[in-house]
């Protein structure tokens, strides 16, 4: 059985490495809750390289405006056509910030326009149940960023499956801590990350 390798996208513009602890935290959760074979270390993969096709789930985050190069745009398109899933999270928790505007534009150009993902989508029951839709983050509840609780995630779907999942909820901040710290949480807030991975591996 081949291992699942958590991959973070490195892109030419912006700050792609703004949430360096997210991979380790999600890998810890996958090992903790599932029987999936998971590589203990994540990898960084260039968005414009054919290496992207070795990792069918790729996490992309950042604070700064995103402008894909021609190679990155072409590779994202190929990646999605082949069955890959790109999980993009706005590290700003903004509804109209620079990352949001530029990233959604780039995704629309490369793959197609993002649409609201209904809160009863199978993503929310892929492993842990989230009957209310995407879990809120402390950034939302504390009024940081745009002072909004985002009710929905956005997605581009292809043939009935999510090809690009886009979040304004700032999971990058929410999950960017050492896995050992989980013991201080009454409810593990990375559980939704497990759903994203299990969804990607099963749909």
């Amino acid at each position, binding site marked *: 059985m081949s291992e699942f390798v958590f991959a973070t996208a490195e892109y030419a513009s912006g700050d792609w490495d703004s949430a360096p602890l997210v991979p380790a935290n999600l890998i810890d959760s996958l090992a903790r*809750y599932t029987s*999936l*074979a998971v590589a203990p270390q994540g990898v960084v993969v260039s968005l414009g390289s054919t290496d992207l096709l070795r990792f069918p789930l790729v996490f992309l985050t950042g604070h700064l405006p995103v402008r894909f190069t021609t190679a990155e745009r072409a590779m994202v398109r190929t990646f999605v056509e*082949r069955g*890959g899933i790109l999980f993009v999270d706005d590290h700003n928790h903004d509804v109209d910030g620079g990352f949001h505007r530029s990233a959604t534009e780039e995704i629309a150009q490369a793959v197609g326009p993002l649409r609201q993902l209904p809160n009863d989508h199978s993503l929310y029951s*892929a492993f842990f149940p989230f009957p209310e839709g995407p879990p809120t983050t402390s950034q939302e509840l504390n009024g940081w960023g745009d002072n909004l609780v985002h009710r929905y995630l956005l997605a581009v779907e292809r*043939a009935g499956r999510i090809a690009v999942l886009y979040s304004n909820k700032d999971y990058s901040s929410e999950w960017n801590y050492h896995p050992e710290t989980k013991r201080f949480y009454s409810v593990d807030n990375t559980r939704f990350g497990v759903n994203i991975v*299990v969804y990607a*591996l099963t*749909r």
Partner: protein
Amino acid sequence: MALATLLWLTVEAVGARSAGTGVEVTAPLTQRALAGWSTAPLADTLSFRFDTAPSRLYRDWLVALRRAGTGIRWIDGGIPALVVEADRRPDPAGVVIVRVSGPAGVAVRLDDDLGALDSLVLGSSGGTLRLPSAAGLVRATLRTPARSVIATSASGPVRPPRHVVVLGAAGWEMKFVVAALTERGWVVDARFGVAPGLAVTQGRPFPLDTARHAAVIALDSTAASYARSIVTFLRDGGGALLAPDAAKITELRALAPGRIGTLVRPPLSTGGSVSREVLALHELAPLLDDAFALERRGAQVAVAVRRVGAGRIGQVGYRETWRWRMAGGPDGIAGHRAWWAALVASVAYDGGPAAVGTDEPAPRAALLSTLGAPSVGAAHSSRALFPFVLMLLIGCLFGEWSSRRLRGAR
């Protein structure tokens, strides 16, 4: 010598007359004539010369006449050996493989009930066509200046697609195998193991039943809990495919076509596209005596199949075929999809045999099978020889007479 030959011909003619009457039928064979000979025998022996193979009805009628006491002899007028086989694969994409065998170098035209399909020139080992569909009988027609031969093969009924079950742990291999088969048109019931005692289920994979399922694909050791069901399903006529880790499950290992050999990982150039040639492969060796290698990579067996009970089991030596789909260049997706579909088709239960039809896949072979080997026409040839032997005899006598008359002149 000529006198002796003449004597032999005379004895043979007398013998033939005492054995009964013989008639050489030169008129075309018709139902009316056959009916007439059935009620009022024309002769003790009927001789035919066939330039084309008579139909199944006429052949069977001639056999009936023979069994009723009329001798039936036939002379081969040069019927070309033509064989056609139309094999509808259990594949939702509707693949029909047509194999034609016949004299090398001749052109054969293919038709079905809806019209012309294609044509091909036969090689030394015949020819094969892969058609997206065919309706009813597939006819192969071979035309030469002297005659034409038509062989027909039923392409088989189009059956409603059964389901394919895929079992394994959640992972890229399972995800992309399910995706490939779904895109091909199979209805896939799947069980993705995600945690101890917890699985993501798609469709209704259990109970395994040939009434609902055509094949089951076991990708890894998580299928161990269902090994007994898989064995029962196989013996009932279902198909099974085993990936390397699933073939290590005790109950399935006993049925697998081969043993899992060492893992070979060909070097992959950086940035190069992935093909089946560079996938990690467990050689399947040794194979069981009744196993058949479906695919080899170099000298290594990569895919093998064998029969188990009424079903078929296939074994795949490749690991992580999903890499071919994701990083396989422009044809990666289509290649991966077609390859998995072909694997499933090679083992899938297709609903049992088709009803016996009116096809005639090998006319000459059928004629030989029902009427026996053709006669060389000994009686006719000896009769035909008679004037020549007579002339030879007269010539010899004249020579002898001349010799005697001219002896004194010298």
